[in-house]
């Protein structure tokens, strides 16, 4: 049993997630006391219902589905930013998520300082960052600006820097949310090449994306989420074909 589990990078077991939607959120003691008498303002919304899936080591998986189907929530659960109400999620190995690029960038610090800060959020040590800093700067193509404060960057430059840090963390599992559209076409192609390279290295990757072209080119498996449930799970080509047919 133990050995069989070793093949998997991510195991999701019967996960349920509901969000409490407050029509009028109580944050203070006074409001909370008042809330005791008027509970009806709270609404439960089920985002994910009884999701179970296993992702093998080295598998590249796409999560597809319309807006609000729970893709991003599933990714957040895997990163441990939020926790499930029921069920459990096991991940093995170092995990990096690119949920939103440049989270935690400090606008007044220089690009170089932000690389250190951002990489340390991903759990790298100083030595590990020192080893990677050249690669990161090289990949971002921002060498002339690297010692300027990040607030002077354009949004494209910002994304490039953030992506370069995340991609160089050397994680075993990469979770990527809607960010294959980083920068200009030249940089996008470069990112794509890098993803393929990482795939060849045997990294586990999970994408959330609406770009069916990149899904077809990159992923071996696709999971279609619909209203918080898995509607289809299997070979990329078949799932994407079904999905495109349905949504048209």
């Amino acid at each position, binding site marked *: 049993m133990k050995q069989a589990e070793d093949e998997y990078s991510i195991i999701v077991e019967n996960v349920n997630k509901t*969000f*409490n939607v407050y029509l009028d959120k109580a*944050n*203070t*003691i*006074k409001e*909370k006391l008042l809330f005791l008498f008027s509970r009806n303002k709270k609404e439960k919304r089920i985002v994910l219902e009884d999701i179970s899936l296993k992702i093998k080591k080295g598998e590249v998986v796409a999560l597809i589905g319309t807006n609000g189907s729970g893709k991003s929530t599933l990714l*957040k659960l895997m*990163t*441990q*930013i*939020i*926790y499930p109400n029921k069920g459990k999620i096991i991940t093995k190995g170092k*995990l990096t*998520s690119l*949920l*939103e690029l440049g*989270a*935690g960038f*400090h606008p*007044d610090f220089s690009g170089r300082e932000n690389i*250190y*800060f951002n*990489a*340390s*959020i*991903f*759990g*790298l*040590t*100083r030595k590990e*960052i020192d080893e990677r800093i050249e690669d990161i700067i090289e990949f971002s193509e921002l060498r002339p600006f690297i010692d300027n404060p990040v607030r002077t960057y354009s949004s494209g430059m910002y994304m490039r820097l953030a992506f370069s840090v995340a991609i160089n963390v050397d994680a075993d599992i990469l979770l990527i949310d809607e960010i294959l559209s980083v920068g200009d076409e030249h940089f996008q192609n470069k990112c794509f090449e890098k993803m393929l390279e990482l795939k060849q290295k045997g990294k586990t990757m999970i994408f959330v994306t609406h770009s069916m072209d990149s899904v077809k080119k990159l992923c071996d498996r696709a999971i279609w989420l619909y209203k918080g449930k898995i509607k289809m799970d299997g070979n990329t080509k078949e799932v994407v074909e079904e999905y495109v047919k349905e949504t048209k």
Partner: protein
Amino acid sequence: MINVFKNLYKYRELLKTNVKKEIRGKYKNSFLGVLWSFLNPLLQIIVYALIFQVILKNPQENYAIFLCCGLIPWTFFSSATTRSAFTMIENGNIIKKVYFPREILPISIVTSEAVNFMISTIIILGFVIFGGIGISKYIVFYPLVLLAQYLLLIGLSLIISSISVYVRDLQHLIGVVMQLLFYATPIVYSSETIPDNFKWILYLNPMTYIINGYRDIFYNQQMIDIIPTLCLIIISIVLCFIGYIIFNKLQKGFAEQL
């Protein structure tokens, strides 16, 4: 439990950069910069000395020295607890987007304040040297008292920072509580001058033992009360455990609450 330390060790670089950011960020954009670390407590001592010695005629010998041994550790205590009530909300942006051990945030607040306190200790040393008291051999116990205070603050900040995410009132409440505690701690007065029927308040307050400890080292130049100090360290370690349990329970909802 071992996992906690493993995780913290793994993220030590984040802890380090965060502490640096806290220290550097505190005086950013101010004219005098880090000099405020000295200037702030110094001005405070002048204000209190003016009120309690010159106007209210406190009979304490070397009152300014007496005062600074209490006021500087108090500033460490009150700013660490107050700032931990704000840290989660200030960092909400990162918490919602990246995973990292959340306890890094309160721990780096307390650690950066501890570094600040160690820098401010130079003021105490300056006072005792130029005030003619000199430095005693009991200064070897300074790290022990500091350890007691550090552990106490880690425990408290874990609790305060996690609860303040759910009950934002804590941010406003904490200022008043600190003011009350300020007068319930022998900072501007000596614990001996308090009437016997009120002394129990001081004995219940952990900061009493800490400030008396610093005062024994620098002002009275005598052996600290070692048994209460060691007891306080043990209690603080227990508090850290309890704090961590509470923190761990509450942190699961952070991203949704913020």
